[in-house]
């Protein structure tokens, strides 16, 4: 079981408030991603749940039990750190065995569990090596191995892939998702990368300046962002935000249209624009265009579109997928 509930949780360091007040419920078995820009308090929130930081106010309960004042180890959570935080003087086997040893398990059980974890994570041939002799991806797997042997009620991941190169990040992302399907254990995952959030999460928590901006499934956030911040943060390339006359036409202070929801034509359309840079990716073409009276607009066109720098094009937003925001930055009802 791994149901985690935060009630009125706040955290300040001296006079600096990192998290003003947060309420959040995480269901058992959910994959929850905390996402937000640097300094938004997502890592602090994770560390509060882990017990590595003390809360300044509010309560944290796991499976209905108040753990606010409990030591990290008593919370039955396992954590994977950004720097992997492996014990450099121990072999892979000893690293993975460490939490079991601390829990006082007998040697036969430890050996069996370490072997099982190593098999799941493809580390069997590396058990006698030291962390220094492993690649980044292997180290990350050892860190995950150390977490899974304890059979915790929830896993906490603090930006676990940010030290890996792009290709490896993609592989590890799949492995972690696969692991979640196998174990069906609650996972809380912190990242600043919205692609990781979109692809892995059951539920995304978007944080900004210590506040929760929105909680929802990846597609909910993509389709119905509650405010300008979420709209701008979720989705890649970023949503185009347009103010002024074109927005007023739709009765909004700001309108948002995703690059993939703009229709492009060389003959006619709502907004006349001049093509700046065209990035041909094969499958897609990203166009950066200067639209008259609007400014720079990003367009995601299909891979075959044949426009080049300086061409005149016409853009038409898909009206059903247009987002309207009021002066307070909140989304307006459709």
């Amino acid at each position, binding site marked *: 079981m791994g149901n985690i509930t935060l009630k009125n949780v706040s955290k300040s360091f001296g006079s600096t408030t990192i998290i003003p007040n947060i309420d959040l419920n995480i269901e058992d078995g959910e994959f929850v991603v905390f996402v937000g820009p640097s300094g938004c308090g997502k890592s602090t929130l994770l560390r509060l749940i882990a017990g*590595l930081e003390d809360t300044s106010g509010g309560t944290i309960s796991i499976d209905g039990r108040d753990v606010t004042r409990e030591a990290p180890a008593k919370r039955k959570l396992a954590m994977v750190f950004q720097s992997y*935080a492996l014990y450099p003087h121990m072999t892979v086997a000893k690293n993975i065995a460490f939490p079991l040893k601390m829990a006082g398990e007998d040697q036969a059980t430890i050996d069996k569990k370490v072997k099982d974890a190593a098999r799941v994570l493809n580390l069997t041939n590396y058990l006698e090596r030291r962390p220094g002799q492993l690649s980044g991806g292997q180290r990350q797997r050892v860190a995950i191995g*150390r977490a899974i042997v304890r059979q915790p009620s929830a896993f906490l991941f603090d930006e676990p892939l940010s030290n890996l190169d792009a290709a490896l990040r993609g592989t590890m992302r799949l492995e972690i998702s696969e692991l979640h399907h196998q174990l069906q254990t609650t996972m809380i995952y912190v990242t600043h990368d919205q692609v990781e959030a979109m692809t892995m999460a059951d539920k995304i928590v978007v944080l900004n300046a210590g506040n929760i901006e929105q909680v929802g499934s990846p597609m909910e956030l993509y389709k119905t962002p509650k405010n300008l911040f979420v709209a701008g943060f979720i989705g890649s390339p970023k949503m185009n935000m347009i103010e002024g006359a074109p927005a007023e036409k739709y009765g909004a202070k700001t309108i948002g249209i995703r690059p993939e929801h703009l229709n492009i034509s060389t003959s006619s359309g709502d907004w006349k624009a001049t093509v700046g840079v065209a990035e041909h990716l094969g499958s897609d073409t990203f166009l950066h265009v200067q639209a008259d009276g609007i400014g720079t607009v990003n367009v995601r066109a299909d891979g075959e579109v044949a426009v080049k720098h300086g061409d005149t094009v016409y853009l038409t937003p898909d009206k059903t997928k247009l987002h309207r925001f009021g002066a307070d930055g909140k989304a307006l009802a459709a």
Partner: protein
Amino acid sequence: MARAVTTQHKTIATAAAWVVALLIFFPILYTIITSFKSEQEAIQGFNLIPSGTFESYSEVQQQSGYFKFFFNSVLLSVGSTILALIVAIPAAWSMAFSPTKRTKDILMWMLSTKMMPAVAVLFPIYLIFRDSGLLDSRIGLTVMLMLINLPIVVWMLYTYFREIPGEILEAARMDGASLWNEIIYVLTPMAVPGIASTMLLNIILAWNEAFWTIRLTTTNAAPLTAFISSFSSPQGLFWAKLSAASTLAIAPILIMGWFSQKQLVRGLTFGAVK
């Protein structure tokens, strides 16, 4: 682009390195050579080939009893090092793992005491030693050596401890380690190389310390530094005997330094490169 290194360049660099090394080592080498000469040979001028006599060594031992001084040197350097570690480990630990706004200032203040010329405090210290009956006592001198090397020991340990990532300690905490387990299984094994090289360096520093050891001792607590200086003045200049005494004084630390050079170099350059 990497700089091209030709064989010629390499040869020149190697030769230059040898010349510099020889220049640095030459005084010690010549001391050793002179110690195997007779007094007559020694004053005859520059000569690299000694007659190979052990005369000076046996005279030095007969006259002054090398082993008493040697024993004092060992006692003072090892004793002061252990004392310094006992004080410095908790100090460095708390500064590295729970620093405050003033930690940097405290470290700088400690280091600043090393910038003061020792002679400036000679009189107050001498008087304190005299009035508390610590002159020529092993305990007094051990404490003195501990105090003068303490800033360096704290600084070195602090740098070492700072290199232990906080996340590893947090990981241990998450893994269910109690504070005691954390110290035994994680902290100590990671800190041992640092503590060992700090210890080695401090033993060498204490062994070589001459200013205070010569001024605060006469016979009872006198270490090898006092042993050498006793050969220089009262009997005129007996170069061969002085060289034999010097060789005997530096030999133990030279041998120890030779065997632990890997540790020492690592200790001195620690944290310089990631």
